[in-house]
């Protein structure tokens, strides 16, 4: 038990170091930009007078030496001061707060579907290795894995928005609908969630499916499975009670590694479906050249992924019996 506590502590320290690395990276990367960082803090269309630029430089402390600027930046980040968005005329932190939960909702639901489906399909495919079910599902997964996720989203818009006209294809709620109670509001959000989360789940499915399938194939050749067979357990019992729990472990690790790509996948999917999350916000920041906003989005998403990764790591430590002893 003590060893487990130590392992978790080490991982937490590691995560904190990585977040510090992101902050440093973020600071210096955006300082590489055009000669005068003060210029970047202004909208592109504005022809700023030298006095205004000088004022801004002083306001943001850009007249101080680099290491002082860096120290100030770190302190400000931890105070939640992430800069001012000139596209939204609000502090960046407040803008992000409005959007981040929508991304967490989309990613959570999409990931959830992908993981559960991946585990079930992978288990069945491994058990029926080489049979039509395995071949078909593996081929389908490979196909979904090979397409750009936003393209799949566009195909869904064509099919469900243009041809069938049965599902909403844009936004998170219907702006023309009056919600008399919470339930109708939630129902509306869920209806809007169907297409983006399905798109994300289908693209992400392949990695969980492949890991589950391949690990299970390895597991089924191990001795204790043969023992279980000899004891006369049914095939179903062996699969779900003996083989699957042991194959789950590597799949959890994949969930952690996969998080970075889920965030990337969700980014373009949000743009396609105008889902008001961090990806959609990124798009706005690029189009409007709102660099303080872009910088903060990058920082927050990276930190989120690192923290989520840490949680997956801790869960893994709990699940792995070898660490517990």
């Amino acid at each position, binding site marked *: 038990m003590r060893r487990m506590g130590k392992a978790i502590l080490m991982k937490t320290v590691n995560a904190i170091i*990585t977040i510090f*690395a*992101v902050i440093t*990276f973020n600071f210096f*990367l*955006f300082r*590489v*930009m*055009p*000669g005068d960082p003060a210029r*970047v803090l202004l909208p592109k269309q504005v022809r700023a007078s030298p006095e205004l630029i000088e004022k801004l430089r002083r306001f943001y402390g850009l007249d101080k030496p680099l290491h002082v600027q860096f120290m100030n930046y770190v302190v400000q980040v931890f105070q939640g001061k992430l800069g001012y968005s000139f596209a939204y005329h609000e502090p960046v932190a407040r803008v992000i707060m409005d959007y981040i939960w929508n991304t967490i909702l989309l990613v959570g639901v999409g990931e959830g579907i992908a993981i559960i489906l991946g585990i079930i399909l992978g288990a069945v495919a491994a058990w029926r290795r080489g049979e039509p079910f395995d071949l078909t599902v593996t081929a389908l997964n*490979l*196909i979904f*894995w*090979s*397409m*750009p996720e*936003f*393209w799949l989203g*566009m*195909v869904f*818009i*064509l099919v469900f*928005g*243009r*041809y069938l006209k049965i599902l909403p*294809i844009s936004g998170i709620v219907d702006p023309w609908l009056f919600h008399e109670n919470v339930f109708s509001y939630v129902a509306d959000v869920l209806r809007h969630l169907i297409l983006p989360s399905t798109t994300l789940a289908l693209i992400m499915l392949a990695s969980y499916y492949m890991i589950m399938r391949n690990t299970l194939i390895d597991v089924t050749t191990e001795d204790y499975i043969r023992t279980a067979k000899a004891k006369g357990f049914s095939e179903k019992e062996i699969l779900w009670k003996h083989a699957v729990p042991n194959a789950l472990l590597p799949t959890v690790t994949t969930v952690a*590694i996969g*998080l*970075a*790509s889920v*965030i*990337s*996948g969700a*980014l*373009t999917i949000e*743009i*396609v479906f105008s889902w008001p999350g961090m990806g959609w916000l*990124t*798009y706005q920041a*690029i*189009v409007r050249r709102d*660099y303080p906003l*872009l*910088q903060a*989005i*990058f920082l927050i*998403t*990276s930190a989120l*992924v*690192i923290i989520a*990764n840490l949680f997956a790591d801790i869960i893994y430590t709990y699940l792995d019996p070898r660490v517990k002893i």
Partner: protein
Amino acid sequence: MGMRWHLYKKRLKSTWNVYKRNKKGMVGLTITLIFIFIAIFGPYITPYDPKKIDKTAMWEPPSFKHWLGTDNLGRDILSQLLYGTRISLLVGLFATLISMALGTLIGLLAGYYAESLLGELLERVIDFFLVIPYLPLMIVFATVMREMEIKLPLFWIVIIAIGITGWSGTARVVRSQTLSVKERQFIERARSIGAGDFDIVFRHILPNILPLVFAEAVLTIGGSIIAEAALSFIGLGDPTHISWGMMLNYAFTYAAPLRGAYWFFIPPGLAILILVLGMTLTGYALDEVLNPRLRER
């Protein structure tokens, strides 16, 4: 030199003999070769100039005149698709070259100096790039390069942004492979006859890792092509060159899915899908052939 070349040729031939028997690998290789053929000769057989605007033929569905219809400005989709093959493949290829160079070098050094501070530091850098979401990182790189004082052509900005983001996976594989190769006896022997670090890393370890890097490269080209599509889709692409990603960008910007203009966006997406699928099959087959440990399964 002649002796060594002869050996390489022999090894290549035996590798090909094993590869030939891999059915999925052959399907993948055929698809890839067809696309390379289109990339080389496509622009010479395009029925129209892919950039030629024709206001009398906007949003036309497929017909005998325009096999895949026209876009919002009356430009021929088939011509854009053929021309885009070259651009998308070139971007994928160049970005992969950058990724492979970085990934191999950093992986080699991280593995060879694993016990020292340098190795520890490089391992951290690799982990850092593995854990950070790659698309936001690519977006940040591309934006920063667009704003730099040295004006790089947009075409190269896209390539560099993808290349310097996509090396970490390769570095991890190369690092772990280096760790195992450097323990082998021939390294010890080379050292005992006075070979320096540079010699050992680049003349003795690197040749043993190259087959692995080659398989990684084929898989990375596919990923880079999808990355190019995503960057162009977001609006950070190069509008002066028509790539598959740029076609998807136009299609989405002008609401092709909602207008029911399936011919505008289905072809480029399908092209990406088929090419990436082909390269993935080729890459996995190469991995199986070149990594005997996997072949036994």
